[in-house]
């Protein structure tokens, strides 16, 4: 399938200051990421808090300026632009906020919030706005009359749906979903995931699905990238990655997820991820890795193919497997 969104050697530095006299180095929240997301797929990005998932999403979206590397959208290079231009060329990429309730203005009726997005994107005729809002609310399974409500009158599941409706109105091609099921109850989560799947088919969408819930990622994603300290350590089809994880970090992450049968699989991962301000030399994961050997402390692993559409960045993946 053709690539719709991708990046090469993408680096994002946060917190850097370049004053006249003083320079302060930032931290590399994203450091050398290559991705290629195919049209129509659901691409999962997983990792612990602080691994750079959200920063990567913001860079793809054009909200966070990249420091180096290239971002491609529908075959065109869209990186290296000033912030306004960066966002404008990426109209086809939209973002659903992690907490859609917080992203709604409590003083505005939901309909007004939805209309504002349309107005910003050039749909100013009131009648057309109303028609598109009603149509989109119906598409996300809500009663169009809900447009007259205020955000606090909606349930968590309804707010999620409004969050989705808000970006679907803009007819995006790629939707970045940031923890779309965080804080939802099981029964509501199932309904939201089903809705996402139906909308993808109906509107021909491509999803970038950021989540730390591995059960959900396994369920809905076609391909998955695992991030650790700003880098992708393993990438592959969800089927391959979950059936035969190659990177010790991926294994530990999968083992940590609680299962209904109560089983504990594999060793646990001690400690917290180190800070981006003090990235370990060599393989970034080696201080926490049970499989680490002497070379891991100074040799940076490169990405190797571990199977069809499966890549891993670990010096010892062959021995570990």
């Amino acid at each position, binding site marked *: 399938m053709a690539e719709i969104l991708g990046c090469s050697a993408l680096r994002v530095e946060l917190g850097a200051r370049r004053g006249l006299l003083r320079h302060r180095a930032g931290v590399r929240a994203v450091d050398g990421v290559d991705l290629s997301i195919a049209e129509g797929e659901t691409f999962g990005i997983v990792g612990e808090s602080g691994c750079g998932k959200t920063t990567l999403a913001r860079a793809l979206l054009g909200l966070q300026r990249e420091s180096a590397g290239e971002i491609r959208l529908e075959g065109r290079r869209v990186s290296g632009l000033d912030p306004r231009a960066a966002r404008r060329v990426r109209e086809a990429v939209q973002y659903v906020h992690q907490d859609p309730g917080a992203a709604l203005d409590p003083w505005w009726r939901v309909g007004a919030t939805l209309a504002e997005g349309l107005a910003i994107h050039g749909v100013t005729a009131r009648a057309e706005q109303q028609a598109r809002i009603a149509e989109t609310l119906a598409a996300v399974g809500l009663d169009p009359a809900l447009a007259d409500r205020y955000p606090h009158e909606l349930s968590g599941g309804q707010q999620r749906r409004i969050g989705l409706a808000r970006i679907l109105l803009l007819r995006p091609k790629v939707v970045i979903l940031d923890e779309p099921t965080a804080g939802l109850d099981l029964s509501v989560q199932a309904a939201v995931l089903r809705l996402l799947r139906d909308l993808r088919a109906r509107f021909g969408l491509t999803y970038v699905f950021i989540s730390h819930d591995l059960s959900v990622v396994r369920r809905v994603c076609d391909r998955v990238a695992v991030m650790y300290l700003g880098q992708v350590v393993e990438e592959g089809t969800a089927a391959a990655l979950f059936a035969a994880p190659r990177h010790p970090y991926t294994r530990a992450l999968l083992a940590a997820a609680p299962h*209904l049968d109560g089983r504990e699989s594999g060793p646990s991962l001690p400690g917290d991820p180190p800070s981006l301000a003090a990235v370990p030399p060599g393989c970034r994961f080696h201080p926490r890795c049970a499989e680490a050997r002497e070379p891991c402390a100074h040799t940076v692993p490169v990405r190797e193919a571990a199977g069809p559409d499966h890549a891993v960045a670990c010096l010892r993946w062959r021995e570990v497997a």
Partner: protein
Amino acid sequence: MSVPVLEVRGLGVRLRTEAGLADILDDVALTVPRGGTVGVVGESGCGKSTLLRAILGILPRGAEPPRGAILFEGRDILADGAASARGRIGFVPQDPYLSLNPVFRAGDQILEIMRRHAKGPRAGHRARILDLFRAVQLPDPEAALRKYPHQFSGGQRQRLLIAAALACEPSLVVADEPTTALDVTTQREILALLRGLVAERGLSLLFVTHDFGVLANVCEEVAVLYAGRVIEAGPTREVLDAPRHPYTRMLLACHPDRATDLLGIPGTVPAATAQPSGCRFHPRCPIIRSGCPVEPPALVTLPDGHRVACPWHADPLPEVADG
């Protein structure tokens, strides 16, 4: 058999709200045996947190005096003058980021709890705090005493809160979704720590969660709450492997580990101000029929020790067409 650490009998909690009288808990019964681990599971708004608040004696303003009884160590803590008996219940809150005071050092926050609860000379407190920090496996306990909460990671803060819960030398620890705010890797460590502490110190644990995976990992027994009533209870493995109540069956079928398709449950949890009559699940139930009881059905004990509040627990659920 010894007296259970905690026995909740016929607990009812109602709250006066602007929208009317909210019926939050109704006829809830629950037993935590000595050394046992009991989970309370349910979706938002089912009354999980109110149950904990009733046990801890911190019901919100506007709550009517609870009905029923809560026996802790055999003594009814809802009765007049018995509130101090709650001193030996430790509490682990949900959010490690919000539950510590940012302007006090970690050691001082634990010390404050000890001063309130513990007998004995003050000089011993410092040594006991260090013991607690070691027990919860905080790195470098001496230095941790003098650190402020922001100097700890999320997982370490949760360890600190567990130490705080242990500071009153509790026989019962109640935990309110203690790992919801944590990464899965950290969650696994905290759950292992809790299990270890329960085993080593002979604690009993009442664990509230909405995550069935976590429940399977920690609790021997479980009670499933729906709309303020216990609708199913029993050994965790029994309930997870062979759920009987239509609600539990449908909810577990939503779990991504198990779902054949992502169906959800039609409808929503009723508002506490407008609880349905009879079985509270009936408006959403796929096997509702004319023989359903007019009164809320009571828990019936099955031969395998499993308790369920539905007369049709043996009937299959209808197949739902994918569409």
